[in-house]
């Protein structure tokens, strides 16, 4: 496929390849998306804004120029921005293909990186010369101010011109927690949201810390996607439960939405509001529980995004779709064209199609403090949840915080 090399989120030429539940394929302008949605569908998008997660600077020990790409943190909490997992490159910039980028100098715990106004200390090297855990010095406010002043959006060689934050924030971008844009959301604009409402399509969101798509190293790339924290609002839980009961479709805008909703449902039986950390890989082996249809960018075979599409459609259908994309000159990467894939009828299972969460998921919350994806009350501090489970159930609503 051709790389989309201009940062235009919604171009008049944007296109859409539609793969339906019986494997029929047809191509349309992306503006036809509204016609492929049905009254009663729930469309769920990731409203994460994207961090300026690429930080240029110097490895102070050696004086070597480095680029640090923030790649993950433990939770979404606004004050929790001092520690990140990060990928470090040596001299050079995004115009060099990631796989050709120089290694950083040998990194070791305790070494410092001067990243513009920010100073970071390497806490751990995570089994690979490029992968570290770092801690910023200073306060939370210093880190946000430093990122705002000095950080740039992460970008790749297929798109040479420097990106600005406004290029990578979707129109609905809210809390800045993603490392790369949840780019399927580039297809949305306020006009489309108004059209959805007019058609009787329900719009809901999750917030999911979409991670980096490539490290340039096959060994590291196999670890992708990293664990990604997410938040599901109560309104989204409720909209999905109603839709499930009434046999209406859940349409995910992007792979991160699938990852968050399916993680929550796998854990609790159905989607439950609150915070969690998605750590599962989704692919041909995955029995989806929630999402019926996905709108996604076009992805190259071999990427984790491409693997995820196999949860919706069989390999033969996807190969036919790839050939159709190539033949019709679709453009790939984050500013490229889109695919809309309906889950194949044979990929439904009556055993996993459930609308209500497990009755015992509160027990999970009590035992789950050390477990990723633990749920605690929105209104109570974690300590209260553990000590006063009675209050937890009377609060009526289990939702997130961050243990």
């Amino acid at each position, binding site marked *: 496929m051709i790389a989309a090399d201009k940062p235009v989120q919604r171009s008049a030429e944007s296109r859409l390849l539609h793969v339906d539940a019986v494997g029929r394929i047809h191509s349309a302008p992306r503006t036809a998306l509204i016609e492929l949605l049905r009254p009663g569908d729930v469309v769920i998008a990731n*409203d994460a*804004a994207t*961090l*300026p997660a690429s930080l240029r600077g110097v490895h102070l020990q050696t004086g070597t120029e480095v680029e640090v790409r923030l790649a993950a943190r433990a939770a*979404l*909490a*606004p004050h929790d*921005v001092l520690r990140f997992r990060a990928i470090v490159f040596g001299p050079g910039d995004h115009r060099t293909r990631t796989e050709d980028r120089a290694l950083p100098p040998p990194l070791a715990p305790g070494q410092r990186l001067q990243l513009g106004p920010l100073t970071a200390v390497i806490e751990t090297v995570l089994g690979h010369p490029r992968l570290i855990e770092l801690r910023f010095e200073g306060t*939370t*406010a210093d880190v*946000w*101010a430093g*990122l*705002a*002043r000095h950080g740039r959006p992460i970008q790749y060689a297929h798109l040479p011109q420097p990106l*600005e*934050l*406004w290029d990578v*924030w*979707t*129109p*609905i*971008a*809210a*809390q*800045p927690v993603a490392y790369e844009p949840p780019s399927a959301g580039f297809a949305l604009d*306020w006009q489309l*949201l*108004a059209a959805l*409402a007019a058609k009787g399509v329900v719009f*809901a*969101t999750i*917030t999911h810390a979409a991670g980096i798509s490539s490290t340039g190293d096959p060994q590291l790339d196999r670890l992708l996607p990293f664990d990604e924290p997410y938040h599901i*609002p*109560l*309104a989204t839980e409720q909209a999905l439960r109603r839709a499930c009961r009434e046999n209406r479709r859940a349409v995910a805008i992007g792979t991160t939405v699938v990852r968050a909703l399916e993680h929550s449902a796998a854990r609790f039986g159905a989607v439950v509001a609150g915070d969690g950390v998605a750590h599962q890989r989704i692919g041909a082996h995955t029995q989806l529980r929630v999402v019926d249809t996905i709108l996604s960018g076009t992805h190259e075979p071999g990427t984790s995004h491409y693997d995820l599409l196999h949860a919706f459609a069989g390999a033969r259908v996807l190969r036919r779709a790839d050939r159709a994309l190539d033949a019709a000159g679709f453009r790939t990467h984050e500013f490229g064209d889109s695919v809309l894939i309906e889950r194949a009828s044979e990929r439904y299972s009556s055993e996993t199609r459930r609308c209500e969460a497990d009755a015992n998921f509160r027990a999970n919350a009590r035992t789950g403090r050390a477990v990723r994806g633990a749920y605690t009350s*929105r*209104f109570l501090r974690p300590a209260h949840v553990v000590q006063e489970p009675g209050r937890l159930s009377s609060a009526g609503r289990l939702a997130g915080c961050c243990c």
Partner: protein
Amino acid sequence: MQTDMQTRVLITGGTSGLGLALVKELTARGARVAFVARTPERVAAVARESGAHGIVGDVAQKHDIHRIALQAAGLLGGLDVLVNNASDLGPTPLAMLGDTECEDFERALVTNVLGPFRLTKALLGSLAASAREGRGSVVLNISSDAAVNAYARWGAYGSSKAALAHLTRIWDEEMAAQGVKFLALDPGDMDTPMHALAIPDADPATLKQPGVAAREIADAIADLLPVALRRAS
């Protein structure tokens, strides 16, 4: 204690006059407040004094807008209320239109119309997210009677505020379905540095104290939110 139910507010022009009074008023009512202003020393001083988050930036600078939005949504974890308060008078001393330098007019338009438009657009996702979560969502644009009445020598300021008031009505029309409410309010003639710049010989006794206007504005915001900001004691 910080809770998810605290109203999260961003105020531009937060280190003097009405903006400063709003920072104090809304902080006192239990909101989590961030504010923007241009001078780092003044931002630091107001942040220290009020406990609000200070953000250094200039709403008239295109490249500052997303940096401000990033820090506000990042520090507060979202945004429920945006107050576009930072304003520019145009030429000072005030001048008749025929004597107004184009650059002075342009600065008033960028600060009073384009800046609020850009900042609102950058934060629209956060504001709509708050509305979807049932927290309520309000954009309050500070207007003026000069937006309505044709006062001689107030041409740059008055026409920019008239544009802002109209912009507010169109935003409100378009975003009502998303649950984001827009409001333009005239706080009245106040005893502020900006008023002193416009009318140096005004008798302060005839002017409203900015704290009084801040209470009225906070009440107006509270009326539009499902979880009311506590009334000032």
